[in-house]
């Protein structure tokens, strides 16, 4: 690669203090985003994907949260060392962010026009008149009809899809180099989601902005991104180009995710779920965080936390073993049989216990 990446996150560590102890929300996370690229971050709730993106914006509520270690290199500068006022020059200007629920990030008592022109005047030094014209351009760019009139509306006068368009327009107002989209379509209906995804794809091609697309929806990732990282329990567990990841997933968790979603274009009579529950981030252990749910689990998994290793060209996975998707079905069935036996034993225990008491 000739060019240095736009964003490089190195060994990021984020902790939250809670009443029950310190939660390691993000654990030794490293990844990079190139200019003009769309990176997908996939994970379930509690995987640390949103915390990672908030850390890049330095928007972790502190206390209770804090960046406990690592670097966030944006265009060569380490954002972790930036002061709050330096960060304000970056946020909304060079990096901007859109959220799942646009209603919470828009001020309900201010007109849309005011909210849009404010950052234009602040970051781009525009006059009020210039800013208003630019806001009208932006709104029409994101497909809002009659933008000059809609500028004078309040956020609640827009529908959910339209609000998300306004958020995108505001996000792109200052031509940011990086746009972080945190579950931007999760709250929307499918047909509206399709509108927004199409819009984001079009804008990406027009403006060349790099995008970090955070989602739990593998379908959205498949259509939107160039490269994907998969997060589990605050760690990056797999990283590859989108095509490679879907064709040849190598981390048991990724395989499990792909097997547990029904496909519209496929015929499955039965899904193969991932058993069990995500781990408690409170405890510090040396085992693989996925070990308790893994169909491929071996002795070694309980005593060693695997780190990312190269499994194919430009494809890393955090698994100690070379496994692939085809092996799983066999393993899964074996494991279910074992668990059922264990369940019966547990039940007998309970019954025996009851009879005794």
């Amino acid at each position, binding site marked *: 690669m000739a060019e240095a990446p736009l964003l490089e996150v190195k060994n990021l560590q984020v902790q939250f203090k809670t*009443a029950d102890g310190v939660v390691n929300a993000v654990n030794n996370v490293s990844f990079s985003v190139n200019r003009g690229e769309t990176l997908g971050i996939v994970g379930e709730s509690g995987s640390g994907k949103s915390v990672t993106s908030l850390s890049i914006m330095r928007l972790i509520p502190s206390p209770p949260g804090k960046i406990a270690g690592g670097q966030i290199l944006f265009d060569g500068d380490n954002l972790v060392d930036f002061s709050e006022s330096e960060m304000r020059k970056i946020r909304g200007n060079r990096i901007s962010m859109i959220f799942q629920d646009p209603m919470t990030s828009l001020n309900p008592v201010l007109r849309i026009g005011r909210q849009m022109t404010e950052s234009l005047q602040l970051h781009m030094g525009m006059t009020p008149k210039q800013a208003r014209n630019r806001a009208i351009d932006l709104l029409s760019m994101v497909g809002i009809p009659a933008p000059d009139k809609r500028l004078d509306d309040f956020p609640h006068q827009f529908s959910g899809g339209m609000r998300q368009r306004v958020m995108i327009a505001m996000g792109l107002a200052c031509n940011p180099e990086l746009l972080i989209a945190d579950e931007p379509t999760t709250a929307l209906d499918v047909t509206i989601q399709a509108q927004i995804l199409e819009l984001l794809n079009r804008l990406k091609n027009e403006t060349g902005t790099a995008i970090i697309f955070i989602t739990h929806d593998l379908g959205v990732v498949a259509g939107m991104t160039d490269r994907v990282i998969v997060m589990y329990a605050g760690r990056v567990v797999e990283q590859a180009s989108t095509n490679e990841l879907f064709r040849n997933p190598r981390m048991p968790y990724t395989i499990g995710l792909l097997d547990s979603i029904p496909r519209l274009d496929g015929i499955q009579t039965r899904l193969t*779920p991932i*058993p*069990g*529950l995500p*781990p408690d981030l409170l405890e510090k252990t040396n085992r693989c965080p996925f*070990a*308790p749910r893994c169909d491929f689990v071996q002795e070694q998994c*309980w005593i060693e936390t695997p780190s990312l290793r190269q499994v194919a060209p430009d494809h890393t996975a955090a698994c100690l073993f070379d496994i692939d998707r085809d092996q799983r079905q066999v393993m899964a069935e074996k494991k*279910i049989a*074992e*668990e*059922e036996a*264990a*369940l019966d034993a*547990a039940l007998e225990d309970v019954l025996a216990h009851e009879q005794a008491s």
Partner: protein
Amino acid sequence: MATASNVAGTNPAQAQEFTRPVRSLWSDAWMRLRRNRLAMASIIYLFLLALVAIFAPVIAPHSPSRPTTTELRERGVYRQAAWVVDEKNPKRSGIWKFPLGTDSAGGDVLSRLIYGTRVSMVVGFIPMIFTLSIGITIGLISGFAGGKLDSLLMRFTDIIFSLPDILFFIIVQTAFSQTAFGKTFNGLLLIFLSFSAVNWASVSRLVRGQVLSLKEKEFVEAAEAVGVRRGSILFRHILPNTLAPIIVAGAFIVPSAIVTEATLSFLGIGIQPDTNPNNPFPTSWGQMILEGKSAIDSQPWILIASAIAIASITIAFVALGDGLRDALDPRQ
């Protein structure tokens, strides 16, 4: 065939699930309350005050209502607090027998203060129970029944809510204080009733709001879908979930009732002083403030001691109420 996918105990990570103790929302709240130092200090202080109130006859060095026989001849002569020396009139100099001095009738101020705790405790808790009972009943009916009955009850509640309460108390006191009913328990019963009669309105509004939002909750729909009778839905599903805010409201009613009694007694229309030695509620802090005010130049201790007593019990209840709110509703 159901898969056993979620069964714990098959690996070390889930084994600990079995050993964890059961935690209800109440025990969680208690844990949070225990971590709140101010609230815990308040609880201890209020517990001590409750002991003082119950064991007042044992603790008080003298009778609160009249001078003890040996001091009879000193009737009409007040004494200063123990550490004050009155050079002009040695009879008035403080002695440690009466640590906070005596009042103009020869009564021991400290003993009165100790007995006054009883009135404050009773005047705080009993109206709270009345107020909550009326408020909860009306709020539950109003919120659960809905429709015309709800509108009717809520308009009535609005009227009560808009009454100027001090004016209402004054009218009630002047109208009934000389009747037999008004004299029951030194007039305390009248204070309980008039306080509760105007203060339930805010409780019933609170409860109704809770019921309305709980009625829409899916677990209530689920109970209905399962065929649970309406009465059970109300008492098993809705009422227990309104208790947390009710408890918080209750904790704030207590200081407000205490202050109301003190205010009325200060205005001379609260509880009536009684010299009968067998009366369990011979005096109140409000009354002492009233007396203390007229003797502010000669005996400031009466006023200061009773004002501190009222302020500290009020602050303790408010702190406890805040603590309860934080503990019961951790989202705020």
